[in-house]
Structure formats: C-alpha cells, structure tokens
C-alpha cells in the first residue's frame, strides 16, 4: 500500500463504468424514485429541503399551467430541482446496491438448515431434528461431514475441517477443534470431514452471517458520530442560506426588484450544500463496503471512523512483523572445518526435517553452495526430533550428525566423546553472538565433535520497515508485541523499525499498555485471536479479531478479519482515514462551489433594476435565465459526476497530516472554487445553443 487507492484490489479495480454493474445501476435508478418518499428523505436534511422547494416550484408550475403563463423557465427549474433530489438518491442507491450484491451471496449460506440437537454430550445417537431457526443459545448440536453448521457456536468436542468459503471466500478448509484458540465455528459454513459437537452461542437472526448481511446491505446503517456532526454542519449551512435567500426578497424589493419564487428557490438550492448532502450516505456505505472487500467486517461504522483516528498500533510480532517461522541465515563452522563441509553436514542432518526451520537449512545450503540432495543417500538412518532429546539428525556412512538446541547437542557430543568434549572458543563465541543479536543458535555435532553453529533468525518481512516508516509519517506509533525475551525483542524491534515493543508479553501487559496509551489521549488498535486476547481487544479502540480465533475474541473485538491476517490492521487504518478524507474533501468542494454560483446568479437576479451589476457577470453568461438555469443544472450534474469519487474514495497516500492537507486543500478547496466557473459556463453555452433559455 505504498501509494495508490486502497480500493484497487484486483477484483474491484476496474475503470469508472464498473463502480457498479449495469444491474446495480438500473436497480438504483428505480430505488432513486422510491426514495423520494419524504419519510425516507427526512434523514437527509439538505436533500429534504431540496425536495420541499422542488414541490413548491411544482405547485407554481401547475398554477402557471392553469393560468397560461410562460412555462419554459419555471418548468426547467422544476425539472432540474427534481433531478437534484433524484441524483442524490441515486448515489445512495448505487452504494447500497453494491452492498446488496454481496449480501445476496451471503444469504444463500443462510438457507434454513436442519440441526440435530442432543441433550447429552456423551450420547450423540439420541438427537432431535429441528430447524436451525429454532435453536437457542446453549443448545448442543452434532454436525458431521457434508453438513452445514446450523449456527454460530463453539466446538465442545471433536475436531473437523470446515469450509468457510461462504464468509471468507477462501475455499481451502480450515481446521476447527475443541479447546484452544480455534474452537469457534460460524453458522452457514460446511463441515468437510469428521464430526463435531457445537454449543450454539448466537440466537438465530443475530448470528455472524446475519450481522454481516445487515452491514453490507446498509439496512441497519446508523449514522456514525462524525457523520452526525457533519450533518449538523450541513443543516446549519442550509439554515444560513435560507435566511440569506428569504431576506433577499425584502432587500430586493428595496432595490426595485421583486424576485420570483422559482428564482429564489434556484438560488437557495445552488447555495445549500446539496453536493455533499447528496453524497454523504453513499460515502459512508462505500467505506464499509471497502472494508468488506478487504474481507474485514466492522461491527459498527463507529469502529471504521475510530480506525482513522488511531495513534498506536499494537502488532503481534509473529506473522505481522516477521514471517511466522525462524529461518537459518548462516552456518558458522569451528576452526578446522571448512564452510562448505559445515553446510553439507547441516544439509544432511536436515534432509528429513520437515519443520520450517529444517527446510530453511536445506534451502540455505542450496542457495549458498548449490548443494542439493533431493533423495536421501542410501543407508541413511534419520533420527527424528523428540521432546526428550531435543535433537534430530541422521546416521549415514558411519557419521552421526545431530543438530538441535545448543545444550542438547553438546550433551550428545560429550557422551560420544566419553565426557571429554573439547568445546572450541569460537563455537561459544558464535553461540553468544547469535543469542545477543536476538537469533536462535542451533548446535551441529558430528559424532563426538562440535562442528558448527547454525544461526536461526526471525526474519523480518522485507517491506515492513517502509510501511512502519509510512505509519510514522502519518503520526502512528507501532508497538511490537512478542513473547520473546527483551534481548531478542529489542533486536527485532530495531530491525523492523517499530517505535516500541512489549517483550514477554502477557495478556495483562497488553491490557495495561493499551490503558496507559489511552490515558495519554491516544487511540489504540490491535488484533488478536486467543481468548486471553479478549480483554485487550475489548479495551482497544479498534480491536480486530481473527476469523480463526475464538468466539470470545470475536465477540470482544469490533472488527473481524476473515482472512485472519494481522497485517490487515494497517489497511484498516488506511480505509478509516480514506473515509474521513473523502467526506472532508467533498464538503470543502461543495462549499467552495458557492463562490461561482453567486457570480452566476446574483447579477442575473438584479440586472434589470441595476444594469451596472452586469460587471459581476464575469463568466459572461448569455442571459439572466440561462445563468440561473445553468447554475441549477451544474449543481445537479456535479452530484452524478462525483458519485464514482464518493464510492471509490479520494486518493489516499500515507503521509503527514500537513502534506495531505495541503494537497487536498489545493485539489478540493481551490478546485472547488474554480471548477464551477468552467462548468457553469459550459452548461450555459449548451443551454444557449439549444435555445432553452
């Protein structure tokens, strides 16, 4: 995410025409008309006011029609006022339509299933069949291979592979088992193998899938705190312009002009912030939608906004900052052993070691010396790792090669050397150096002789340092959370470029850290999956639970990442910021537009009584009627023109607030002042050419 828009996930990244399919667009056109219902519109005050005055002008139009007055001007104003309302409705409908398309596929997973409820966990044979909709919290159900899990719950017995494609879109099954951190199952997912007993934890209708459907459909969308505040601002601006326009009637009379209602209405509608008013809810829905497209589910819009405000990110080391597994990075031979021999010995000893560490030794040997050995040499006898010996290796050609924890390998070699093992000083030095650098040393012995030290290292992901630098520029501190000892943690922290770390972290440590940050006025985001993460997830301002995590973790967090990718936290912050930026930018644009509209309309209003005011007609609009009409038309069309931007979000680049501000202020502030001058002039030329006014 070094630059570029967040929305550009491959699946969604098509040019403008594809912000929605033709199906969504045509459905949205119908919905736009349905949304004219004043009861629905009332929640959008700016557009509601527009509808009220459009109705007023319609009444006057009908009166003119009945009395045989000229109709062309009033009729066109009326039409474009209604278009303004319809375009705003359309924007919201398109955003909802995109969510609905996703909801449809989810709903298929919610089809009514039959559940087998058991009374006694030890007697799975005695069950009652009932509809999933009749399940209650606490019921025990048996699910076997090929069946849909009837509701959200926790596995109390058994292990199974489960296909969760219905919610994650990922078709490879995942393992779910009772106890531990992978016990949660989601209703609507399918058991692929084995049989499990599940205790239902969510009542029908409030399950995970239900919530997800409600969220993406936007049906239960509540206005978020920031959206409410912005709506208040827009209502205030609407009132101010209402005062301006109504009083203008009296002031106009003084100047010898009696302004007609359609003209005053035209002035009002062009001045009130219809652009942002029309797009506001679409922006909110699209923000949620962007999260869903990243396979993240926010339990509330509030959480998405909070994500934009985050000051501190708590990131788990493993999987986020480093690859999950330690990898061999070098093999240090003792004096008298050539480097190549040491690598070859390490390779031999690791051939049958199927752990990630073992494989990393094999690939290191291949990369470094081109050593390759696909098949084990004949007569090789592999010794597998055991918890008792803590070493593994191979007996081949009379050699006994062993690798493992430094102490264990030394004990092994010392036994074979009859208790008279010579430990080279260089060997000890290498072990110490590796430990100090935060790595893990492995001993390598050839019979009774220590021949090399293997350096296993937690490898920091290649691009993570730049991302942390980006975050720092955005004013976000990153904190690494790890179970490692402080020495190891410090080494990795400095390599990855995090701002702070919590070593040997216990759940209580995390909780304390979060509370302390919050006391200092910072917002904290973290992700977690275990039950013991739940308190910290609940305490954090943004708590992202992994889909693979426990039910407790998923309940505690306010977001769930369906991909269970802890790195996602960084994207989530970006999505939150982009949502707020889009709102702010379009608000600024909308208000800045008014300057040009004044220059179009004011001279047109009073040109008859005060011809000298013609000097204010700096756009050179052809007639007073065309000027007013052009401003109204521009005001309506700009809503349509900005729908793609509202849905896609403004360009988001991680940078400091100062540089983001100057960029957006230039584009949307200055642009907002200039664009309508050009736009209104163009519309005026067309209106004049078509003899519409």
């Amino acid at each position: 995410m070094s630059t570029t828009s967040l929305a550009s996930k491959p699946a969604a990244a098509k040019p403008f025409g594809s912000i929605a399919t033709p199906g969504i667009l045509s459905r949205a056109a119908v919905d736009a008309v349905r949304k004219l219902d004043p009861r629905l519109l009332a929640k959008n005050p700016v557009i509601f006011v527009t509808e009220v005055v459009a109705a007023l002008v319609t009444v006057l139009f009908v009166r003119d029609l009945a009395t045989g007055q000229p109709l062309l001007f009033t009729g066109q104003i009326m039409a474009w006022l209604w278009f303004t309302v319809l375009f705003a409705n359309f924007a919201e409908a398109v955003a909802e339509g995109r969510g609905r398309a996703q909801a449809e596929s989810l709903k298929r997973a919610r089809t009514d299933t039959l559940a087998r409820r058991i009374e006694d966990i030890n007697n799975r044979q005695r069950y009652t069949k009932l509809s999933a909709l009749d399940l209650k919290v606490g019921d025990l159900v048996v699910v076997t291979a090929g069946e849909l899990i009837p509701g959200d719950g926790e596995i109390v017995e058994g292990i199974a592979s489960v296909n969760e494609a219905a919610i994650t879109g990922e078709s490879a099954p995942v393992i779910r088992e009772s106890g531990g951190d992978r016990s949660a199952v989601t209703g609507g997912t399918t058991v692929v193998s084995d049989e499990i007993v599940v205790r239902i934890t969510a009542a029908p209708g409030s399950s995970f899938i239900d919530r997800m459907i409600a969220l993406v459909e936007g049906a239960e969308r509540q206005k978020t705190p920031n959206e409410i505040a912005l709506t208040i601002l827009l209502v205030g601006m609407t009132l101010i312009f209402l005062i301006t326009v109504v009083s203008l009637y009296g002031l106009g009379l003084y100047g010898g002009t009696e302004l007609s209602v359609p003209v005053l209405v035209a002035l009002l509608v062009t001045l009130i912030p219809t652009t942002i008013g029309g797009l506001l809810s679409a922006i909110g829905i699209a923000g949620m939608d962007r999260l869903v497209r990243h396979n993240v589910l926010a339990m509330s819009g509030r959480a998405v906004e909070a994500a934009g405000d985050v000051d501190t990110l708590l990131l788990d080391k493993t999987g986020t900052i480093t690859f999950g597994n330690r990898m061999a990075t070098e093999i240090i031979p003792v004096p008298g052993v050539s480097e190549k021999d040491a690598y070859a010995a390490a390779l031999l000893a690791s051939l049958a070691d199927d752990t990630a560490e073992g494989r990393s030794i094999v690939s290191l040997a291949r990369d470094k010396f081109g050593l390759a050995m696909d098949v084990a040499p004949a007569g090789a006898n592999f010794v597998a790792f055991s918890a008792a010996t803590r070493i593994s290796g191979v007996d081949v050609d009379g050699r006994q090669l062993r690798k493992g924890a430094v102490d264990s390998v030394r004990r092994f070699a010392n036994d074979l050397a009859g208790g008279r093992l010579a430990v080279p000083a260089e060997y000890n030095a290498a072990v110490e150096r590796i430990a100090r650098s935060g790595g893990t040393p492995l001993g390598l012995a050839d019979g009774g002789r220590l021949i090399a030290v293997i350096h296993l290292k937690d490898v920091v992901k290649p691009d993570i340092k730049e991302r942390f630098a980006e975050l720092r520029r955005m004013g976000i501190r990153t904190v690494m959370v790890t179970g490692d000892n402080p020495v190891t943690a410090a080494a990795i922290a400095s390599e990855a470029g995090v701002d702070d770390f919590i070593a040997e972290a216990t759940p209580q440590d995390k909780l304390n850290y979060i509370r302390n940050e919050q006391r200092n006025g910072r917002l904290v985001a973290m992700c977690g999956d275990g039950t013991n993460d739940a308190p910290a997830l609940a305490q954090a301002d943004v708590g992202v639970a992994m889909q693979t995590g426990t039910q407790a973790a998923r309940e505690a967090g306010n977001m769930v990442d369906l991909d269970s990718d802890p790195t996602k936290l960084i994207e989530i912050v970006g999505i939150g910021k982009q949502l707020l930026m889009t709102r702010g930018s379009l608000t600024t644009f909308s208000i800045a537009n008014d300057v040009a509209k004044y220059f179009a309309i004011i001279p047109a209003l009073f040109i008859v009584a005060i011809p000298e005011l013609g000097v204010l007609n700096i756009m050179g609009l052809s007639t007073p009627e065309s000027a007013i009409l052009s401003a109204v038309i521009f005001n309506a069309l700009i809503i349509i023109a900005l729908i793609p931007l509202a849905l896609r979000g403004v360009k988001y680049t991680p940078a400091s607030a100062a540089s983001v501000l100057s960029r957006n202020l230039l584009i949307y502030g200055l642009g907002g002042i200039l664009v309508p001058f050009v736009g209104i002039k163009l519309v005026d030329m067309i209106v004049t050419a078509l003899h519409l006014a």
Partner: protein
Amino acid sequence: MTSNGWLQIILLFAVVILTAIPLGRYMARVYAGERTFLSAVLGPVERLLYGAAGVDPRNEQGWLGYTLAMLLFNGLGVLLLFALLRFQGLLPWNPQGFSGLSADLAFNTAVSFVTNTNWQSYAGEATMSNFSQMVGLTVQNFLSAATGLALAIALVRGFARSNAKAVGNFFVDMTRSTLYILLPLALVTAVALIAMGMPQTLDGQVAATTLDGAQQTIAVGPVASQIAIKQLGTNGGGFFNANAAHPFENPTALTNMLQVWQMLVISVAIVFAFGQLVGDKRQGHALLAAMLILLVSGVAIAYWAEAAGTPTLMAAGLDPAGGNMEGKEVRFGLGLSALWAAVTTGLSTGSVNAMHGSFTPIGGLVPLVLIKLGEILPGGVGSGLYGMLVMAIIAVFVAGLMVGRTPEYLGKKIEAREVKMAILAVLILPLAVLGFSGVSAVLPDALAGVGNAGPHGLSEILYAYASGAGNNGSAFASLSANTPWYNTTIGFAMLLGRFAYIVPMMAIAGSLAAKTRLAASSGTFPTHGPLFVGLLIGVILILGGLQFFPAFALGPIAEQVQMLAGKTF
C-alpha cells in the same frame, strides 16, 4: 495613498504587537491566578472584594453556572442602567438639567452599553448628564469589557483543561479583568489623554466668546476618563455625538494614534495570552496572523478606495490628489481615517473619527464587511478571541477531515456537540442582520428613517443591524435611528448578537473542558503555520462572505458600480 500614511499605519501595528506581547504574558498570569507586579497593591483589594461579596475564589463553576452568573450579572446591569437613564432628571451631576430618556431609547442605550455595543441613538452632549455618563455608561464600559474577557478566558480554559468539569469562577474572572487589566490601563492612558489636551471636568459646559463677539456654550465634561475605557474596552460610545471626530474627544493626530493603540492592544494581547494558556504560543500566533492579515487588507482597501475618491466629483473639477475627504477630519486625513474605520470594525469598538456613511461605497463596504465577518479581526476584548475560536472550530471541522482523522483543535476532538453549538452561534449574525434588514427594507416606518436614496439607503439599514448584532456601535450616520422601531429592533439585535452567541459558545467551553486533551502527532491536523492561517482566512471569508454577498451586491457593490458608471441619486 501616501508613503507617509502607510508609515503611520505600519508603525502603529508594530507598536501594538510589541506592547501586546508583554501585556499578554501579564494577562495569562492574572487569569492563572499567579502573582504579578501589581499583586502587592491589588491583592488586598481583590480579597476584600471577594470577602464583601461572599465569593470563594477557589470555588469554580461549570459552564452552565458560569453562564448563568454572567447572564444574571448583565441582566441586572441592563435593569439598573435602564432605571438610571429613565430617572436621570431626578439624579445628581446634571448641570444642564437633562430630563429622563424615553422608554425605547433608555432600553436601547442600556442594552447597547451592557452588550459592549455602544450604539448611540442619541447625542451625548445633548442627552446625558454627567451622572449618567460616569455612573451609568462608564461603569458598563468597564463591566461589558470585563465580561468579554472573562468569557474568552473560560473558553480558553475549556481547551487547556483535560477531563474537567469547571471552567472558572465568573466573579473572580470579572474582578481580575477589571482590577488588574482594565483599571490600571485606563488610569494610565486617561492621564496621558488629559496631558494631550482632552478635557476632564465635572462642569457641563464652558461659555466662550467667539472672534466676532458672539457668545457660545461649549459642552465639556469628564471626557478623558470615559474615552480611555471606551477605547480600551472596545466599547466605542462617544462622550460627544461626533465621537472621536470631535476635537475634545480626539484633539490631535497623537491622541488619534494612542486611541487606535488602546482599541487594539487588549484584543491582540489576549491572543498571546491564549497561546500561553494552552501551552503552545504558535497557536496564538496563527490566530493573530489571520486576524491581522485580514485587518490590514481592510485598511488597505479602505485607504485605496478613499484615496481614489469619486469619479463624478473629479470630473466636476475636484482635485484628484485629495481623494474623498467628505466626512473626514483634516487633522487625520485619509490614511488615519481608513485605519480607524477598519480597526474600529475589525474590533467591536464602533468609535469613529470619520463618518463611515460618507466613505466611498467600497471604502464603506470595508467596515461593513469587517463587522459581518464577526468582529473577530481581532475583535472586541474577549469577544474577538472567542468568536475567532468558534471560527477556528468550524474551519478545523470542515477541512480537518481532509487529513483522515476526526478533527481536533488544540488536542480536543471536535464532535457533534461542538459543531452544533458553533453553528448555533454563527447563525445569530445572519438571523439578526438579514432578518431585521429584510423587514426594514420594506417597512414604511423603517424606510422613513433612511437618509439617502438608492443603494446607499440600503447600506444604512444593513449597517445599522450589523453594527447592533455585531455589538459594534458605529453607524452609517445618515440613518435616523432614534425611532421606536429602530431603537427596539436594534436593541434586540444587540441582545441576540451578544448573549445568543455567548450561550452556545460557553456550551462549547464546557464540553471541551470535559474532554481528554489528546497528544499531538504528525498525523494531527496542524493548526499553526501558514497553511492553517490561509485556511482560516478562507473559511472566514467564505462563510461570512457567502451569507452577506447578495445583500452587499444590492447595497455597496451596486452603489460602487453605479458610481463608476456616473449614476447619482
């Protein structure tokens, strides 16, 4: 325009800033309750006053308690002043034997002085006894200014405090404002003004024999003491009808400069104090930069317009070098008149040393615009700062979202409640100005008072209500405003403009104080530096300008374009 004129203007601003810095530091200490060099003398007086009034200075109030105390205090102030003016004839120190004021004029005047407007529908020397001037008006000059300062400090505390319920004690802030700031400054500058030739006597008038032997009575009185606080407290109510154009109210160019300095110094100093109290001086500097850039632009435009003069008169043979000298004092000239006009309206003083109604249309538009931008450039004592802070809240909210965070100002999140209250506050000005103007523009009773035909008449009406609602007090004086309609409606405009603004503003103070003050980071919207200054200027111009542009187009702008086209009325 002359370089001499500009030199005087620049020199004045330099002196204001240089003196406001230490004054601001001093004010910050006063409001923080710390010791100052005057504590040894004034501390006992302060404690004595608290003891007499039964006020425990450590007992702080929440925003509502603070606001109610302020409303009660000012409400009583209106009643007392109203009674005093009505019964002026029965009260002492009335050498000319003036009778009581009519009910609507007494109401208008009482409201006018309590709200720091000092709109005067009367001529002071022909209406007010010395008792009314000194005990009535001068007292309110102090108290209305102290009220503004106290309220501003309460809002600043809202920003500076974290998780707090209280915003201060109204009576303590009032006492400290008056005792430590207004009184000492008024005392020193009044003496300076007397030394520069301003009268200070309890006599009502002196008799003089003119050169051709006629007897003339010349009104005098306790002028210097009232003028000192009139300017320092951005009140503006003149002792004489001609205000600071009167030779006794403003004898020389030097008194003129001193008075402009007096008007500006506290309003500028409190912005420095604000920076200090919130712990980041740059925040104060940014606000001040926005204020002064707009104010100096106003001075420049007015100066330019007045220097350009009227083409019709030039064509009739007037010396173009003289510019538009109509309604101006020759001892001040164009530069100092333009300076005063902009300063008195950029602040909320409303005192005048030239007749704004006689300015060229664009020259007269400058004070009108400055009032309608909210009198925050830098605004009345205290009221300028809290008005500017409300603007800053709106600016931060609109543009702050563009950096991708919930907007914050000075570490406080700007959320629904703050936006709601800020919007309520800024609604007051258009409501009072355009509402009353719109009605007056068609009401025969109101139109009867209009002194000029054409767009200028509309400007007179707009100016009157803007001046009232903005608590300014200056006027396009050709409007005959001493009628029941104007006295009453302008009275209401003044009340709305002052108190209907203050209540939501104080609600913001309370809600901010209760919030946690967040730490700033590089992701925080920066509210210092040129970018924010530019943004703030833009928001002030667009928000203020958009509301009033149609009205301006019909008034001063129409007049200007018609004047350029050679049209007369």
